[in-house]
């Protein structure tokens, strides 16, 4: 069975903002403010097409519009379906470059650094000065 994300936009909006609301104190946007439903989630679902069916099946178990206690409704899906939804919503949210800039996350960079050997040697010499950290044992084979 194939699913069309456009058929789920209303559900996705309330579910996404329930999981990731805005935080004015830190200046972090909600999921919908960040563009999860229309811009980021389609990218995430394309990257993880293996998870898309379980994501949509879980969404179908939720009401079209947000219930009175939306978090309770999502949790009532059970751990597996909750994870299917939460992982993809959060995964989509963190695809946004502006959000990662706010968090100071540059992605997994390629770093080309040279060790400071002076610092390394000073550090390990302190450990070595504390002495041997293994048990001496008889060298001959014991009973086997």
């Amino acid at each position: 069975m194939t699913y069309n994300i456009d058929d789920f936009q209303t559900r996705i909006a309330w579910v996404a903002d329930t999981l990731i609301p805005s935080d004015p104190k830190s200046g972090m946007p909600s999921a919908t403010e960040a563009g999860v439903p229309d811009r980021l989630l389609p990218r995430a679902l394309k990257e993880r097409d293996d998870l898309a069916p379980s994501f949509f099946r879980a969404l179908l178990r939720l009401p079209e519009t947000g219930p009175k206690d939306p978090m309770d409704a999502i949790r009532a899906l059970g751990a597996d379906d909750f994870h299917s939804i939460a992982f993809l919503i959060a995964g989509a949210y963190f695809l946004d470059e502006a959000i990662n800039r706010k968090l100071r996350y540059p992605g997994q960079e390629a770093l080309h650094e040279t060790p400071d050997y002076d610092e390394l040697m000073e550090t390990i010499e302190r450990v070595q000065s504390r002495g041997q950290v293994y048990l001496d044992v008889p060298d001959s084979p014991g009973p086997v």
Partner: protein
Amino acid sequence: MTNESRPTVYDVVIVGAGPSGAVAAKRLAQEGMSVVCLEQGSYPDYTKLRHSGLEFELTKQQYFAANPNRRKAPADYPINVSDSDIEPLMWNGVGGSSILYAAAWHRLKPSDFRVRTVDGIADDWPLNYAELEPFYARVENDFAVSGVGGDPAYPPGFDIPLPPFPLGAMERKFATAHDRLGWHWWPGSNSIATVKHNGLLPCVRRGACVWGCFDGAKASVDRTHWPTCIKLGVKLVQNARVLRVETGSDGLAAGVTYVDRVTGRTHFQPGRIVIVSANGLGTPRLLLNSSSNDHPNGLANSSGLVGKRLMMHPYGTVNGLFDDFFENWQGPYGQRAYSLEFAETRKETNFYRGAKWQLMGMGGPLASVGAWPWGSNSDVWGESFHATVRKRFGRSAYWGIMAEDLPSEDNMVSLDPAVTDAEGMPAVKITYKASQNTMDLLDFNLARAAESMKEAGAYEVSGTPLMRETGWHILGTVRMGNDPRTSVVDSYGRSHDVSNLFIMDGSVMPTSGAVNPTGTVTALALRNSEAIIKNRRLQPVSSTAEALKVGL
């Protein structure tokens, strides 16, 4: 029944193209022996990696997930874990689990070979540290081990061939904390190249080691060994699910029967020597499935120990939150540092043996709301979401606590006759319960690691005592020893029952130690291979294979 009439008879048939199989194939081929290796999977498809972009966290667990029951790749086989505290992790393909290992590299300590002598429990090994040491040194060069030599947690002589990674802010916190505590600490040793070496490129600390190395720096044997093996003439047969090791009327191994997973055809591959390197699950699975009228309880199983004594290094974490922002998402991942302060039995504790601690990176923002290493992630959503990310991302570290697992015959691998893989071979069932010794050991080490976290400046510390999906190290299920009544193979991996059948993987380890086992497993494979070379003129071989070789 097979449907091939005249296969080539090789000197050596190897089952499994992982670290031990690759080490053996390379060394035996260097001596001019003809070698064929049958691998149930294929080469990893590194084009599927997305590690350089923001998609990394979202996609890392897709093709390169470590749990075969979740990954469900065509080469995987079902594993019944309903009666197990821990789920086994592995990669089934060329490179074996070196594709997914974190590449933290260690030797065992001298006392790990003498647990019975030192502690009066479990067993001694049929060899000692000094006997394995030269082979450790050779595989450490082949596996591009980087780090700092001179660790006082080992006898003198553990020299690391490649230079270390730089110290970062995270490592410095714990170095000074352990100075104050008077505890051991050491920069991470990893089989990750820091300079160009043995077909590997220098690591750029991408931090994606356990999901397939994007940058060609981690020593997985598809990169370090198989190119050389192929040049030496080793025949590597991919997508070959080996169903049985066959024996002739003389009781010796004559070869193996396998299914080509692409064509569905069954073949018999004869050989003068058979080496099984299919890991601590796959190896007992194959031996148990090779039962016949002559050995109804499975091949090489007169001791009844094939599949028994499963050990998996129970694993917990201690997580700390810090006020300052520091780079905690880059590699190596891998271990950035480790402590062996509590790795051996101490007089003041109520348990035997100990644990290794490894200082690990935390990943990016998505990991900060995930279950690893935080345990449950059910309370991080909604109003807690941003505060959780702010507290954890860039402001956290964890000690991974790897507990020595002691052998018990109640912990075992058996065939699951109710379930088969796609080729009709019985699946495996694991029965495994962490012992009271393990739980006491973890409790103690988690408490000490919490002290370490606080001393390093953590304002909040949490712990996860026994994590379920942590069975990277699958050990002990075909144990070695000198007595055929109490062991399956001898100190060179040779079956006591079938003298041209060798086992080379973690399944032969009589005890587990507390450290990552690939160094030990590959050193044993190299030692065993040298013994095969030395004894090749005297090696008994199956008359069935010999007859095929001369065309009878």
